[in-house]
């Protein structure tokens, strides 16, 4: 699908019109640097009821002071997406309420994803002093940058005189290195400011220098709990672009592996949610059963967490002969164990009290924030990519899309628990019917993608994972963009947290189930 290029002046009216016409899900904003032609952004939109897709591209020729009107009043998630684009490309979105860097330190020099960015250590050395939050800087200290001047002025008082505590970056409840700054009133949260980027590794920039098979290795490390699905997405995108047909056997293996990975991820979700709520025993139970999947993974792919299994045109190695038996045995085992989790954790009154009615998000908000995956489905939004745009074998197998209506923590938790059962159901349909054939098709030694823009998305363990490639015909992409599953979730944090207590933040964070390396990339 190629994007529709429109003039900068008509972006706002066009976007408003699209929004009115039901394009209510902003999948992604992809910042672009087209060199001589200027900077720009590509908006990927979807209609949440008809699943119709459209991409709108806009270009801005002024490289010195690029400005694009903001759309964050139409789609709430645009607030974070636009901050990301500003961070990487220096494009200022006029009308954005809080134009700060999202990932990099606020004293970072330059915009790394621009093609003319200078990567030398001299410009951005490793600074060993902590960054000063913008609201603690004095006005005169803020550097004389036109873009920042414009917007930082209004926002340099993020919190005012409130009691601020920091959660993170090293904190057991943030599942990694996310940082929240909270304004508290007693135990209640007044305001939250999310700081990302503590694990921003610049994968997209790195990828622009690498060949396609080399990039594959990075996808495993984005969201390591959906390593398979991520890699599947990129393989699918490349295969689509070069017109490669893959064998049925590969499709079966990939689908089964995707679902095993989903179970693995949801078990880890369950464990971590339990641990965050203080039920350490349930955490151990979840991990105990997760090891069984990891055993299967290790046997077949050679890796427990980072599997390296999908490659362009197939999979790395054929499944082992006893794979089917092991998987079936595991499915049987797991079904029994779900009851144990229910007894010890799910139906426990304390758990229910901690989760029911906490951290509600409505269906409309979920769509506006683009919260796909379990969070969206708990709010009643049928956002499963496997149903919306079936890929691999998902149109051939029978499975339900788990939907709940309340959108609170407990529903988010139940969605995951039910999806484990659904995934087992999918696997059981496939495992006995894996057709014979090759497990990979031969590809050219050097893979070049014809000029154009390609995208593909899969249902990752925690939402829609998308890949966008713009190729100029080389063997490395001109621009590659991964749609993070977690960024919309943290963007929605401040909405979900309305009136919550500190302890609720933990429950909400646990059930939103973000993985930080996936947010930060």
């Amino acid at each position, binding site marked *: 699908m190629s994007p529709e290029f429109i003039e900068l002046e008509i972006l706002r009216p066009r976007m408003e019109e699209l929004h009115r016409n039901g394009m209510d899900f902003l999948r992604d904003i992809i910042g672009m640097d087209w060199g001589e032609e200027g900077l720009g952004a590509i908006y990927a939109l979807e209609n949440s009821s008809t699943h119709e897709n459209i991409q709108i591209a806009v270009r801005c020729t002024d490289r010195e002071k690029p400005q694009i009107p903001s759309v964050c009043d139409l789609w709430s998630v645009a607030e974070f997406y636009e901050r990301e684009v500003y961070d990487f490309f220096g494009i200022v979105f006029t009308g954005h309420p809080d134009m700060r860097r999202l990932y990099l330190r606020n004293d970072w020099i330059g915009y790394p994803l621009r093609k003319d960015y200078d990567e030398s250590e001299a410009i951005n050395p490793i600074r060993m002093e902590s960054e000063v939050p913008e609201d603690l800087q004095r006005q005169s200290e803020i550097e004389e940058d036109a873009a920042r001047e414009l917007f930082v002025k209004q926002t340099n008082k993020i919190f005012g005189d409130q009691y601020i*505590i920091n959660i993170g970056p090293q904190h*057991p409840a943030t599942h990694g290195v996310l940082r929240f700054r909270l304004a508290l009133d007693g135990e209640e949260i007044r305001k939250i400011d999310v700081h990302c980027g503590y694990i921003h590794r610049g994968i997209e920039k790195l990828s622009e220098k690498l060949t396609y098979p080399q990039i594959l290795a990075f996808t495993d490390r984005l969201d390591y709990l959906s390593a398979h699905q991520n890699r599947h997405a990129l393989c699918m995108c490349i295969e689509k672009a070069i017109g490669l047909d893959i064998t049925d056997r590969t499709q079966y293996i990939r689908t089964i592996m995707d679902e095993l990975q989903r179970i693995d991820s949801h078990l880890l979700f369950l464990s971590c949610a339990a641990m965050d709520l*203080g*039920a350490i025993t349930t955490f151990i139970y979840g991990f105990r059963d997760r090891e069984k999947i990891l055993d299967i993974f290790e046997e077949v792919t050679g890796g427990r967490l980072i599997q390296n299994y999908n490659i362009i045109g197939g999979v790395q190695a054929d499944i082992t002969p006893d794979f089917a038996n092991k998987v079936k045995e595991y499915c049987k085992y797991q079904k029994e164990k779900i009851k144990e989790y229910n007894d010890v954790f799910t139906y426990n009154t*304390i758990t229910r009290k*901690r989760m029911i009615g906490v951290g509600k998000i409505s269906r409309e908000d979920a769509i506006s924030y683009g919260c796909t995956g379990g969070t969206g489905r708990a709010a009643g939004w049928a956002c499963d990519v496997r149903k919306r745009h079936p890929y691999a074998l998902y149109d051939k197998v029978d499975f339900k899309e788990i939907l709940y209506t309340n959108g609170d923590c407990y529903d988010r938790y139940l969605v995951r628990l039910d999806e484990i059962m659904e995934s087992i159901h999918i696997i059981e349909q496939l495992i006995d019917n894996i057709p014979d054939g090759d497990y990979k098709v031969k590809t050219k030694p050097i893979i070049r993608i014809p000029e154009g823009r390609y995208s593909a998305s899969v249902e990752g363990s925690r939402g829609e994972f998308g890949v966008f490639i713009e190729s100029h015909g080389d063997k490395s992409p001109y621009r590659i963009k991964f749609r993070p599953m977690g960024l919309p979730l943290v963007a929605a944090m401040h909405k979900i947290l309305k009136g919550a207590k500190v*302890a609720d933040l*933990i429950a909400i964070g646990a059930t939103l189930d973000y993985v930080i390396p996936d947010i930060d990339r």
Partner: protein
Amino acid sequence: MLDFNTITTAIDQYLHSIMPAQAAIVTECILVALCAVLAYVAFAIVMIFMERKVCAAFQCRLGPMRVGPWGLLQVFADVFKMLIKEIISIDRSDKVLYNLAPYLVVMSSVLTFSCLPFADGLQVLDFNIGVFFIMAASSFGVLGILLAGWSSNNKYSMIGAVRSGAQMISYELSIGLCILVIVVLSGTMQISELVEAQRDGWFIFKGHIPAFIAFIIYLIAGNAETNRAPFDLPEAESELTAGFHTEYSGMHFGFFYVAEFMNLFIVAGIASTLFFGGWAPLHIAGFDMFNDIMNYIPGSIWFLGKTFFVIWLLMWVRWTFPRMRIDQVVSLEWKYLLPIGLVNLLIMTICVVMGWTF
């Protein structure tokens, strides 16, 4: 049966015979204090080891295995390390209070610990308001926690301390009510008399329904008093990193750590004294043979056996349930435990007045 009264009296007489009365009393005090502290440390080590093994067993794993046979020496290794670990002093903290806090916490728990009746005659002081004294002594531990949170100059600690204050003050009430139920039943506050009254049947059987309810409420409230899951909010690992003792390192942290375990021991010890007859053996009316055999087991074994059983119960709870939220903790106390406790006290009073007890 071994009677500790004879031993202690013998020591007392011997000391009096070789030195003046004043000196003898001072010596005795020092001896008692030494014994209490040594026993405190010994039990702390046993408790920590037990916690780690029991927790592991609930979680389908093995627990300490490699330090000594079955990991028996694990806690000693921890103690050695802790003793020589650097104690960090915090910039801009309230130095005096900061250093005082861990000692306050430990003092309160040693004081309470030494009041426990380990066996007939094996207790420091047996006077007519024994139970009341134990309650009073145990409740000043919260002061240490509040001071620790306040003086650390750390927001997590502060929140943890405030939570702790709210929680402890609330649950003290329930504990008081539960003890009152037993006092009503027995008509005394003196520990030796309480135990003697249970020679022919423990209070949990004598007081049947109200005593059982009191026992359950006591366990819940006691758990809350010791800051253990599901009431471990003051240190709520996943929320406040380490709560009120976030900034403490080395042995200062060790004091908090040990005091937490010993408070658990104390809560269990009081429970076993009040509800399970302390050092009194299990007697079933009518089975004289059985009762005689039971009498041969020393009182201290009875006491420790019962106490460790209650500890195991509390560990079982701790390793099963998730943590509660602060408003739920407070509402559990004020909306459920306190009303039920009051009604329970009323029922017990009626039972005693009407003679409906065994």
